[in-house]
């Protein structure tokens, strides 16, 4: 074994005020000893965004330790992937990050397509995929925006966010018939042609959303109480972000300029980037410290408007054509292994597919960004107040379906 370059830090730190006895009790200088209170935040708790449990050690309002416990929503998605056909697995991908099902479909399809070198994806299909993925990114970030407001205690932005999300869902309903679990982006393209007039409606949505976005930003992100609650809280330094393997808005919130769409391009994102259609918002430490909760929130909110720009670019260049490549009914994937990571709203969604040439996968690994991003909680929570711990969980923007898969 090599020497450890980094010492493992236990998440529960001894207090400076008193000596911590081996039993966990804390001895104070005066003649009283108190012990920390252990509280279960979850599995049924409004702040955990699903069935996750965080075991908190608290000293009054002060959180001295936190330990996430997962697995309440574990459905064995990876094992299922080894037992169903390639295309049959597609609906299961909807279910892990159920707020960004289009992106999941896309990630899985790209991973399988990486094993099928002869398969041509029509350009129209690629553009529709991009539009859907970006619209779904907006929908997902709207949830992140709204529920973060809820975590901090502001109810109303949540409903505004849901109003716009409802619109996106209606658009998706028109194109694929489903509102949450789409299974629309398929191996080889997309399931069907967009209905007539759909692209016009998307454009209308973009026009309206751009106006509304500014209001939302002013209403919540620049609200003084909101800024007070989120600045300097849960600071993730760039080193920490690297160490924990954070991706997506969590990484960019720490000021690291990295986006898979631009830096490890897939589909037509290189073309869109080169056309100058979008930028990558980064955490700036504008309101407090670089990498605090406000920065992460800010990155998410600003990403919505960049997604709108991408959608607009795609709407500008889209032309009629086929939307599905030449794929058979029962897909046989040539033997091989591929890992494809795409930029999900929450970070890098990686699919590792391993085929031995048969009808089912040998291994169907899903690398969920929420799962990885959640690990940072153990380090962020100690030393904060109880209300801050809620703000920190909210700023990681997890979807429990994905952490547990």
């Amino acid at each position: 074994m090599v020497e450890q370059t980094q010492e493992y830090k236990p998440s529960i730190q001894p207090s400076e005020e008193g000596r911590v006895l081996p039993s966990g009790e804390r001895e104070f200088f005066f003649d009283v000893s108190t012990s920390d209170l252990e509280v279960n935040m979850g599995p049924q708790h409004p702040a955990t965004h699903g069935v996750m449990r965080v075991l908190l050690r608290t000293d009054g309002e002060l959180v001295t330790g936190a330990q996430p416990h997962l697995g309440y929503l574990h459905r064995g998605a990876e094992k299922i992937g080894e037992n169903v056909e390639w295309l049959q697995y597609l609906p299961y991908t909807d279910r892990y990050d159920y707020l960004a099902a289009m992106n999941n479909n896309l990630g899985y399809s790209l991973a399988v397509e990486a094993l099928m070198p002869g398969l041509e994806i029509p350009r129209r299909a690629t553009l529709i995929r991009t539009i859907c993925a970006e619209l779904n990114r907006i929908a997902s970030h709207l949830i992140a925006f709204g529920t973060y407001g809820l975590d901090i205690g502001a109810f109303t932005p949540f409903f505004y966010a849901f109003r716009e999300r409802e619109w996106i869902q209606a658009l998706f309903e028109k194109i694929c018939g489903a509102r949450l679990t789409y299974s629309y982006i398929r191996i080889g393209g997309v399931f069907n042609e967009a209905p007539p007039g759909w692209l016009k409606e998307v454009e209308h949505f973009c026009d309206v959303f751009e106006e509304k976005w500014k209001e939302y930003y002013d209403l919540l992100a620049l609200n003084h109480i909101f800024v007070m609650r989120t600045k300097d809280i849960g600071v993730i330094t760039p080193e920490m972000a690297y160490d924990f393997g954070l991706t997506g808005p969590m990484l960019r919130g720490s000021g690291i300029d990295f986006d898979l769409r631009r830096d490890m391009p897939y589909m037509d994102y290189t073309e869109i980037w080169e056309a100058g259609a979008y930028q990558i918002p980064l955490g700036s430490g504008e309101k407090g410290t670089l990498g605090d909760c406000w920065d992460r929130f800010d990155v998410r909110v600003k990403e919505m408007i960049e997604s709108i720009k991408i959608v607009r670019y795609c709407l500008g260049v889209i032309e009629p054509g086929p939307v599905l490549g030449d794929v058979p009914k029962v897909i046989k994937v040539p033997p091989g292994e591929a890992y494809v990571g795409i930029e999900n709203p929450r970070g890098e969604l990686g699919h590792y597919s391993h085929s031995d040439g048969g009808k089912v996968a040998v291994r169907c690994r899903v690398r969920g960004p929420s799962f990885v991003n959640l690990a940072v909680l153990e380090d962020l929570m100690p030393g904060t107040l109880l209300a801050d711990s809620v703000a920190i969980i909210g700023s990681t923007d997890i979807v429990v379906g994905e952490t547990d898969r």
Partner: protein
Amino acid sequence: MDFKAIYDHLRAVDAPGLIEADEPRLPDKETKDKGRSGMPFVRIEPASFVDFLLVCRDDPKLTFELLVDLTASDPAADDENLWVLVQLLSVKHKHRLAVKAYLPKSSASIPSATAVYRAAQWHERECGEMYGITFVGHPDPRNILLPDDWVGYPMRKDYEFPKEYHGVSCE
């Protein structure tokens, strides 16, 4: 850097435990090789797993800051090896590297990568419970997704589904 350059550089710095590069190839009828598509890997010795990751992280030409994914795979029920697969990503140089190590099923054990990347911590817990791989030196090797009292390693190909769980029939 592309995979070829990364591999050459790893050879040049004599990265510990590096065995070979496994690249996609076309099918060959004469050798009855079905070919392989997808992405290239490097294969390493499990024993020098941590040293290899350290080189990957700290070498100025590689700088893989992120351990994106660490997972395992059981290629077949009759295969004698389990695979451990690591996906590395460099933010600075914008390249990826996939690393693979073969572990014999009879003694599936590998040094833990948590000392190099703390991102590995939860991934290793998951691999441990799903495949029964022991990560030597892991600070907290509990189950993460499965209950603490779960018997067997569900992601192995020879796993048999239990007939009941805590008195509840699963059939």
